[in-house]
């Protein structure tokens, strides 16, 4: 027996809505099997993983804290991926954005004014965008594969941050701990509703960016241009759209949002720079973008789901004694199932039994 794909005449609307949910369901089933394999009660563990974090207000705030960077980065990436530009270096742009924005509170701690935070935000955005501009320039000018260059720059950024916080930027009063001085009050991104939890304005930034980019992608010529060039570059050139300009646009946009995410994380959630400031948000955001079907509004929902896996992982570690490494396995599985599910949007699957001649009647019945 073999599997055959039959192209649908039109994309299936049903499956394009359903596929993320099918993927999540399959991930849960696979997850339950994994828990069983690890000797845990699957039902209870799934409950701890995915329901418990949603039951407390403070924990919902934590969800927003984790979701903020994921959403911000993934929205930019989805625009980037739709234009067929593969920026997979968001983790690096996140780090550089965070560092650029931290220049003020770390190097000029005495400069304290209400203007500091807006400046930091701008510098974070600029830093992320500038770092993302490198693969864009190399792609447009030298035809260099952006996947490899953007990824290599992640390692460079991580090493650079490590050096800075252990070296030049180390807190002079910090007992030699590898961290910068804590940000002063003017450099802290405010919490949304500090009475009930830690969620900061980064989450609001994410929602605003999602709405703005949803509008751009669905209603404006720019969104149309991005989609045309992404799907069919030759038709895009025929339309008179410029490939190079869109490469820059996509990279600068996703870099800027990743930089904003990085700055929001250090200024909203951490309050200083450390050698490691991200549990891989830049990579997890790739999963978020695909789970959200590259739609900015879908990305918001997907960002919350992936944020939940982080919280669930922590919860399961505490109450069931599950390794926190399981989280990354979970996230990896989601992406696999999402990609497999996308096939059903464009194709129907047909199972064909081996002897071809005998299949005549059967396949007719299938039509």
């Amino acid at each position, binding site marked *: 027996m073999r599997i055959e794909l039959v192209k649908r*005449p*039109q994309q299936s609307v049903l499956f394009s809505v359903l596929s993320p949910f099918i993927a999540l369901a399959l991930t849960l089933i696979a997850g339950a099997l994994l828990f069983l394999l690890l000797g845990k009660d699957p039902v209870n563990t799934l409950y701890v993983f995915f329901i418990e974090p949603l039951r407390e207000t403070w924990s919902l705030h934590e969800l927003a804290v984790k979701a903020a960077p994921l959403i911000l980065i993934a929205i930019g990436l989805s625009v980037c991926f739709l234009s067929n530009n593969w920026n997979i270096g968001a983790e690096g742009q996140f780090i550089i954005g965070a560092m650029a924005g931290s220049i003020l509170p770390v190097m000029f701690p005495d400069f304290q004014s209400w203007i500091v935070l807006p400046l930091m935000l701008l510098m974070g955005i600029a830093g992320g965008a500038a770092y993302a501009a490198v693969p864009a320039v190399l792609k447009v000018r030298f035809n260099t594969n952006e996947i490899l260059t953007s990824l290599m720059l992640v390692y460079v950024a991580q090493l650079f941050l490590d050096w800075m916080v252990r070296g030049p930027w180390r807190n002079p009063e910090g007992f030699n701990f590898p961290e910068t001085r804590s940000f002063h009050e003017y450099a802290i991104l405010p919490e949304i509703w500090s009475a009930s939890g830690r969620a900061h304005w980064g989450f609001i930034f994410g929602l605003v960016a999602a709405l703005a980019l949803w509008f751009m992608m669905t209603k*404006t010529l720019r969104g*149309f241009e991005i989609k045309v060039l992404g*799907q069919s570059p030759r038709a895009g050139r025929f339309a*008179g759209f410029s490939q190079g300009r869109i490469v820059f646009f996509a990279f600068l946009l996703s870099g800027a949002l990743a930089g904003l995410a990085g700055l929001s994380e250090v200024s909203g959630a951490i309050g200083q720079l450390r050698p490691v400031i991200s549990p891989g948000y830049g990579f997890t955001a790739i999963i978020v973008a695909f789970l959200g079907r590259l739609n900015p509004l879908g990305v918001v929902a997907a960002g919350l789901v992936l944020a939940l896996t982080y919280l669930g992982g922590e919860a399961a570690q505490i109450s069931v004694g599950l390794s926190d490494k399981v989280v990354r396995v979970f996230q990896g599985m989601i992406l696999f199932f999402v990609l497999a599910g996308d096939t059903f949007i464009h194709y129907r699957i047909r199972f064909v039994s081996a002897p071809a001649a005998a299949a005549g009647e059967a396949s007719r019945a299938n039509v």
Partner: protein
Amino acid sequence: MPLLEARGLTKIFGTLRACDHIDLKIGRGEIHALLGENGAGKSTLVKMLFGALEPTEGSILWKGEQVAVSSPREARRIGIGMVFQHFCLFDALTASENILVSLDDPAPAGAVTARARDISKAYGLPVDPNAHVGDLSVGERQRIEIIRCLLQNPELIILDEPTSVLTPQEADRLFEALEKLKEEGRSILYISHRLEEVKRICDRATVLRQGKVVSECDPRKETASSLARMMVGNEVQPVVRDKPAVQSEALLEVRDLDRKAGHPFAVALSGINLSVRAGEILGVAGVAGNGQGELFEAVSGEALQERADQVRIRGKDAGRRDISERRLMGAAFVPEERLGHAAAPAMTLSQNLLLSRYRTDARAFLNRLGMIRNSLIAHAAQRVSSAMDVRKGVEDPEASALSGGNLQKFVIGRELDRQPLVMVVNQPTWGVDAGAAARIRQALIDLAKSGSAVLVISQDLDELFEICDAIAVMHGGRLSAPIPIGDATYEKIGLLMGGAEPGHAAVSQAEAV
């Protein structure tokens, strides 16, 4: 007993019955024509005979015994060879590697090359074994295909539209080779929609229409028009052309256009001059791959020129302007490739309408904030569809869901809807059924009659003779001087297509100036 017999062969794609209970008998030593217009099911049928497609129903008898042709390999094993219309060659491999990779017997490479050389000599099919296929002309590529096929020593050879890529003279040489094969007792299944050549070389003909056999006949006893009626069914409206209404004003001019080859398999253009006047249709003939695509890119502005005056539209320099700006100057363009160039396959018709018209119709299709006005665009797409009789299943389908003919009518109608003063079309009716082709040709003639200049690049000589006021020929990146339609003959054009009379182009250009 026939060599090959097909009984009730049927192939269904989705809901489309591409072949519907087809019966076919091919005798030994016979050249058998398979006639039918584009989309009639010819290619599907032969792909089933060659094992490249699996029949939904029906059986194939080879020398009287039922066989299951499960793969091309199996077909070759029993003695069926095939020369594809879209050659199955590998650009990055050499000619001899291309031959080697298709063979199933494990003979050493040296022996195969030697045998290939013998065949190449015996049938008059010269090929350089060490050349990369990507660098070869279409005619040379076809020779590799034929040699590759003959190496298997087949009893039945299937040729799918072999002359569509050849000059008339090259076609003559092919016919000689076919006669020779026939004398050796081999059978040939010859697929074509060119009636004259079928009458000339074929012994029997099976005619397909909409997936069904409509007639089996002796083509020599039929007239071209009776064969055409069988193929098309109802009479196709003949294209009506009044006396040419050419005016003096040149709306599109190309002057001393040179262009370097942009990528390894591209053709460089050199010294191209042409001018199309209001009311005129100028045809550009030529064998595929002689620079037509590159010329289209240069004229349309997909590729810019070095000097502004190398392309002039309506008397203004346009050489440094991009495609959108040239559209704003009143020009419209339809490239050769429908899916992926003229239209984005996964986008709807209305989105594809916006694709080429967001600048020229910005005021209608975009509001002041740059937002897309979907309902107005959908309305315009509907207008284009009804003007060109585009048949579609749903209101606003994706481009890839349309048949070739209907999509072509749409992408041409999309430009005509603007009433452009300059229209440049590459291969307007390639792979399009007769009804749609006639409609498109008529539309181009009507556009010229209304005072526009039309440049038609085509490999279909019949088409050019039908609609053009003058024909120029491209060969090796050069363009000959235009020959007025009154003086043009197939032979003259054919010689130019084959690159005969080197220097002819330059000389006659000098005369024309």
